Every structure is written in C-alpha cells, then in structure tokens.
C-alpha cells in the first residue's frame, strides 16, 4: 500500500492496485462519524459503441443502457439491495453520467458489512427478461419527470444541438422508445465488458482505518475470480468543431423564457498536471468573463437581463468538452447578444491581467479547501480526475502554476463563433 501525503491540505491518501486490476484509494478524515465508499466503473452513457469482451465485432447498444444497467444492479434473486443496506443502517445510491457509473453508500455503523455488500452486489449481476421489463415502467417515469423539468430540457437541448454525431448529445437515461429495446442479454454484454475490476475504482473516505480497509477489500477481491483483463475497445464518431445546429427552441409551460448559449470546445489536450491546469484555466476564464465580479454580470444584472438562475458550466471528459452559459430571461435575444458580445470583446484585446488571475486563484484555493470538508466531493471528484488521468490533490499546485498566458490560450476555442449554439425554452405563444 502506497501512502501519499498532501501537506498543504493536511490530507494523507492511501493507494493500491490489486492483482485483478482494481484501483483502491482510501482517505481517512478525523472527526467524521460517517464513511463514504464509492465503487465506480469507467462506463457511462457515451459508451454505446464497442467491441464486447471476447468478441471481434463492434456493436451499437440502445441509448440509455448504462443508466438502465445501474438501476438493475440493485435487484437480485433474493431481493432488493436497498433493503440490505437498510438493515445495516446505510444509505445507498448510484448515479450514471456521460462517462461513469458510480455505486455508493454512506454509513456511520457496520462499515465492513456495508463495504462487502457494495463490492458483492456490483460484482454479481442478475438480470432476467421479466425484471428488465418491469424496470421499464420505473425508468419511463424517471424520463417523464425530467421531461417536465425546463432547466434540464434547456441544458440538454443545448448539448444536443452542439454535437452532430458524438453520443454526449444523447440524454443519459435514453428515451421511453430506446429503453423499450433493452434486453437482459444487452445488460450482460455491457456488464461483462465494462465492469471488469481493471476498469473500476473504489474510494473510501471519512471514518476509516486505511490498513484495515485495504486488507478487507484485498481479501474480498482475492475470493473472486475474474477473466483476464483486456483493453476495452470503444468507438466514437469523428466530430467537427462546428456546432451541429445553431439555434433551437422548445415550448414549455414556464413563467419566463430560459436561454442557454453552448460552446463546443476541444477535449483537454493533455493528462496530468497540464490537463488540470488547462481545465482550471477554462474555469477561471469563464469566471472572469461571466462570474459575479465580471463586467458582463454587473451590467446584465443591472439591465434585468439575468436573474438568480444565471449559471455557467464547464464540462470536460476524455474526448469532449463544452461550456453552457444561461439564465431565465424576459429578454432572451438581448441576453444572447450580450453573452456573445462579451466573447467578441475579450477576443479583440485580452482584458484580464495578473491581478485578475491572482484574485481568481485565491478564490479557487479557498473553494478547494472548503470542498475538502465534503467526503462526497472528495470521492466523486477524485474518481472523475483519476479516470481522466489527473489527480484531484494537484489542484493547488496547478492553480499556483497558472499564468495569464494560459488563460489567453483557452480564450481562442471559447470565442470560436462556429462552435456555438443558442437554445431557448419559451412559454406557450398563446399564454398557456
């Protein structure tokens, strides 16, 4: 077991790669009563075209299958896994993103029975045609629930229009139609391909003894047999930098229009510290352009173009990156223009200097320290960075190494007009 000390933030991380390829990380936090343990596979909604383990041909599986599989992992021949976590007083959950599926629990008692339950239920698939059919009703209602959420529709409508081919444009849960095609065989095929321990990571954080926990996980894994790890072959379509659709809209029963400007960005160029620096450069630049102290925000708020719902988002995973900026706005066209004008203004003459960078750097260092109070943040973000070849605990080092020219460099793709799309959710024309 390796021990990694991060003295700037007073944390010590323990790490081991098990013989079956599983990565295990443990971070003890003193003073905490709970332990949060997540078990994550590098498999998400975008992984829909791949060569199944042990086969030669590429298959394309129905949209929404990673999320469907996540749901079905909780049902076993002898009942529902939530019941068992309940017996141990643990609250369990799971989520599926574009690139990951995570299973997790948090508990203040019975740490090892719960850890065993987590490892075992994720490593023992049980799907039948009957249980697969039954789940379609539940997920159908989940999809319908999201269909009624205007903010979600607006955000996803934006991403959908940014991309022509890349599966990031597909809603994570799929559609009622696409999930209707899912079978137990599909689930087994995806499971065997993507749930191999060598494609997965365990993170335990909070009230935990690292030696004991590592021994426990090592023993648990040693008692199971797995196929030999193989490199997973995933296929992604070529995607041009130009956005697929420039403008889109949707009518929904909302009190006020919602507008989002999406910008398609090149995937991060590098892994490691350089990748982290690039990601932080994007985030800081977006803050300087649109954050609460920006010229844009001050004016747009004064002019009533934005309200408290204004938000900026930057997403970067292996193979894709984008930014979405938007707000509820009574004047969506004016707001769009102002968002675009701000990019134009910044590209004419770079408006930010050392002082701006220093202030944002300090803000981000503080934000990172505060985030380390949260065991959920640590486990989820560490896993995300690890799958992208980066280390969450390099954040302060990366921030301190940033220079103004790093911000200038990422401004170029951000201001590419061809890479933009605008999406509006409008109240019904007849007033509803």
């Amino acid at each position, binding site marked *: 077991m390796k021990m990694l000390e991060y003295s700037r*933030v*007073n944390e010590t991380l323990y790490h081991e790669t098990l013989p079956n390829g599983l990565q295990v990380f443990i971070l003890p*936090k*003193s*003073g*905490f*009563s*709970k332990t949060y343990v997540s078990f994550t596979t590098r498999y998400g909604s975008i992984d829909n075209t791949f060569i199944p383990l042990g086969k030669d041909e590429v298959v394309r599986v129905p949209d929404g299958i990673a999320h469907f599989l996540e749901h079905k992992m909780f049902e076993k021949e002898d009942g*529902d896994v*939530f*019941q068992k976590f*309940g*017996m*141990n*007083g*643990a*609250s369990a959950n799971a989520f599926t993103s574009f690139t990951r599926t995570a299973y997790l629990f948090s*508990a*203040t*008692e019975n740490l090892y029975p719960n850890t065993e339950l987590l490892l075992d239920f994720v490593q023992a698939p049980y799907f039948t045609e009957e249980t697969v059919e039954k789940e*379609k*009703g*539940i*997920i159908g*209602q*989940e999809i*319908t*629930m999201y*269909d*009624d959420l205007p*903010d979600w529709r607006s955000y996803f409508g934006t991403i959908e229009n940014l991309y022509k081919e890349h599966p990031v444009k597909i809603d994570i849960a799929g559609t009622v139609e696409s999930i209707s095609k899912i079978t137990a065989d599909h689930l087994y095929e995806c499971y065997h391909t993507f749930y191999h321990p060598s494609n997965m990571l365990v993170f335990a954080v909070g009230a935990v003894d690292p030696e004991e926990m590592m021994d426990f996980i090592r023993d648990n894994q040693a008692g199971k047999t797995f196929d030999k790890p193989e490199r997973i072959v995933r296929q992604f379509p070529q995607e041009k930098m130009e956005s697929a659709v420039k403008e889109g809209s949707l009518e*929904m*029963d*909302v*009190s*006020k229009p919602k507008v989002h400007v999406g910008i398609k960005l090149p995937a991060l160029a590098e892994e490691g510290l350089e990748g982290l620096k690039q990601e932080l450069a994007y985030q800081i630049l977006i803050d300087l352009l649109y954050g609460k*102290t920006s010229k844009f*925000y*001050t004016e747009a*708020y*004064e002019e*009533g173009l934005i*309200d*408290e*719902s204004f938000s900026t988002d930057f997403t970067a995973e292996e193979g894709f990156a984008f930014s979405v900026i938007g707000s*509820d706005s009574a004047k969506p066209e004016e707001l769009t223009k102002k968002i675009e004008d701000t990019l134009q203004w910044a590209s004419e003459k770079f408006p930010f200097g050392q002082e701006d960078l220093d*202030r*944002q750097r*300090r*803000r*981000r*260092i*503080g*934000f990172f*320290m*505060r985030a*380390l*109070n*949260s065991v959920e943040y640590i486990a989820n973000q560490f896993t995300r960075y690890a799958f992208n070849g980066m280390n969450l605990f390099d954040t302060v080092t990366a921030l301190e190494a940033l220079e103004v020219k790093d911000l200038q460099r990422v401004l170029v793709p951000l201001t590419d007009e061809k890479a933009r799309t605008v999406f509006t959710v409008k109240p019904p024309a007849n007033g*509803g």
Partner: protein
Amino acid sequence: MFTETRLTQGVRLYVRRTEQFKTLTFSIRFKQPLTAEGASERAVLANILEDSTETYPSRAALRQALETMYGTLYYTDVGKRGGYHYLSFNAECVDDRLIRDEDIADWTIRLLADAVLRPNLQDGVFKAQVFEREKQTVLERVRSLYDDKTRYAQHRLLTLLRPEGPESIRATGEETLLEALTPEKVMEAYRRMIGEDEIEIYVVGAVDEEAITSSLKEAFHFEGRVPAVLPEKAARGTGKEGRISEKQNMKQGKLHIGFSTPVMFGTEDFPKMQLANGIFGGFPHSKLFMNVREKESMAYYAASSYLSRYGLITVSAGIDADLADKATKLIDEQLEAMRAGEITDTELSQTKAMLANQLREALDSSRGQIEIFDQYKDLPGGFTPEGWIAKWEPVTADDIREMAGKIDRQLVYLLSGKEESADENA
C-alpha cells in the same frame, strides 16, 4: 454539542469548537413570527443586505473582496419553521492556519458586522436602484415556483390544506405584497429586525471559544429584546378535503396527498411518529417505495414527509396521471397495513438504523450541525444526537400501529397535463 452564551436578553451565541473542518462557519439568525407581509419585506431585505455594504458599496466590490479573501462565502437566506420566519446572514471562510499569511476569520467577522449593522444607504434609506432590482429578483424567484411542477404541486397542496396557516405562507413572500413594497417600508422592517428580533449566532470550527465570544461581542452591540411569542393556536382556515385535480401543460402526473395528525414536534409521541413516517415512505426500504415503485413499477419516486411543526404528513409520487386512482388506493393500502399492525421487525430495525444514520451523517457538515441543533434545541430536556437516537430504540410495532391510527387522509391533489383534444371531443 454547542456551548451557549447569553449575550443579552434575546441574543444568544452558540459555539462549537471542532477540528473536523478546514473552514469556520458563521450563521446569524433573526427570528420573528411568520406573516405574509413580514416574509415579503424580509425576502427583499435579505437580498439587499447580500448585495453590498457601506464598506463595499456595490455588488462587484463586495464580491471582489470575498474572492480576494480566499473565496470566503457570504450569503443571506430566508426560511420558515413552524410559525416563525428566519432571516440569516451566513459566512464560511478558510481556517487561517491553512493559508498562513492572512487573518481571514477576523475579516469575515468584520464583514458580517458590516452586512448586519452598516448597510449601503443613501439619505438614511436603501438605495432606490438596489431596492428596485432586488425586489424584481425576489419577484422572479417567487414566480419561478410555477416552473418546478413538483414544488408547485406541494405548495398547492399545503395552501389547500391550511389556507390561512403558516403552512401556506412562503418564506420568500407573495407577489402582490412584494409589488407594493417601497424602500422606506423595507428600511422600517430592517430597523425592527435589528431592534426587536430574537437573535441566534452560531459558530463552528477550530476557534478559541473565549476569543471568538469576545470578538463577536465587540463586533456586534445588540440591545436586549423580548422575544416574540406565538399565539397558542395558530389560525389555519378551513382546509379543503376530498380530491382536487388541476391541469397544466406537462407530461407527468404529480400526485400529492395530505394527511393530518395531532402528533406535533416536541410531544411525547413525536419520535414514534418520526419512525412511523420512515416506515410509511421515508426511505428506499419503506412501504411506499417497495410497493408503489418496486412492486407495481408505477413511479420513479414515491415518498412521504413528516411536517412535524404543522401536524402534517404529505406523500408525493410522480406517476402516469391515468393511474392516479390506482396509486391513491395503493398508498391508502400501505397506511391501512400499518394500522392493522403489519409491521415487520425488519422494517422497524431498518428504519431505526436509517434514522440514526441520517442524523449522525447530517452532523458531518458544519451547516448540518447548525441546522440540526437549531431545529431540535428547543425540545423539552435539551438535545444531543445520541440522546435522541435512544428515543427511537424502544419504539415497538404496536406503537407504530397506534401512530398509523393518528394519521388521517385529508386531501388528494393531482396536478397533471391537459387532456388531448381528441379525448375532450369524444
């Protein structure tokens, strides 16, 4: 949990010294009886006081200062609990020891004192421009409830159940009352708040209790005040019963059911009712989740909440509107089963373990510590987490059966999509 110091009459300080976090958390809470007028005034007031101060007289200036101080968080908030309305000033800053060269904690206390005591005024009143803009912002927030169909349906349910009670008053105020506000009115509300409200100050983090007490005393000079007392019996109005359906343009049916119960917060039966609600629909192992979702596949979510200050239990489920009657029947059956004593030892022990876990877990954040303590501290006999967990331990299946008998269905509310025109003409 917290060390309590009475600073003057009606002003209390609660400090929790802990090394658990990398930050110091502050919360200053002003408390007054909840009315729609007061809530409206204070929602705007909270926004104005978050915008700027005398020292940092613009939003950008204040936010820049916060960024420079290692991203110190500062925000105001409004909320309600039972018959009271709260306006809180909240801050969280990095522990000085992690940054070395700065005095962030002292700066944060000064900032809070500025925000509370030295607002950004012109001729003794809030600046008209700031006032107008923040009034608009709060109005937008109030109106946006309409866009969130689940929250909207829950609010409709409460309004129909208790039309004149605090249940139906929103902490952010009401549209017509907000429209009528003026800078002078809100200024007057500010003066009353500073002079008359009961005040609770919370601090969590690696602090020296004596030192922090004296710096807070020095930064804030509050006069003594007599805390307002709520009337014995709050007005509720005549609530609706039976079934009410409403239509909007949407896909899913939002089924919200209101049950009334005489078992209130702080009564002897209160911990028993917390367990009963947990078994009914509080967790993924509960009767509602297992039957409405897992067995019948009718919903993605189906859960109950116990609003103990209001004597209400509400159930919400997102369903296909055509199945509303079937879902309502299924939900009734779960309560019936509880009334008939159909509660397994497993259900009981799972729910006890989950409630205990939920409480202990919540205490792993500084805000959680403040929220939980603030919520429970008025219980007869005081509050410790383990002491409270011990109250759930002896509860039996028979107690749950008895509690289920004290839950009465009052109103079934369904918000759903408009009918297709073909159906209407059929």
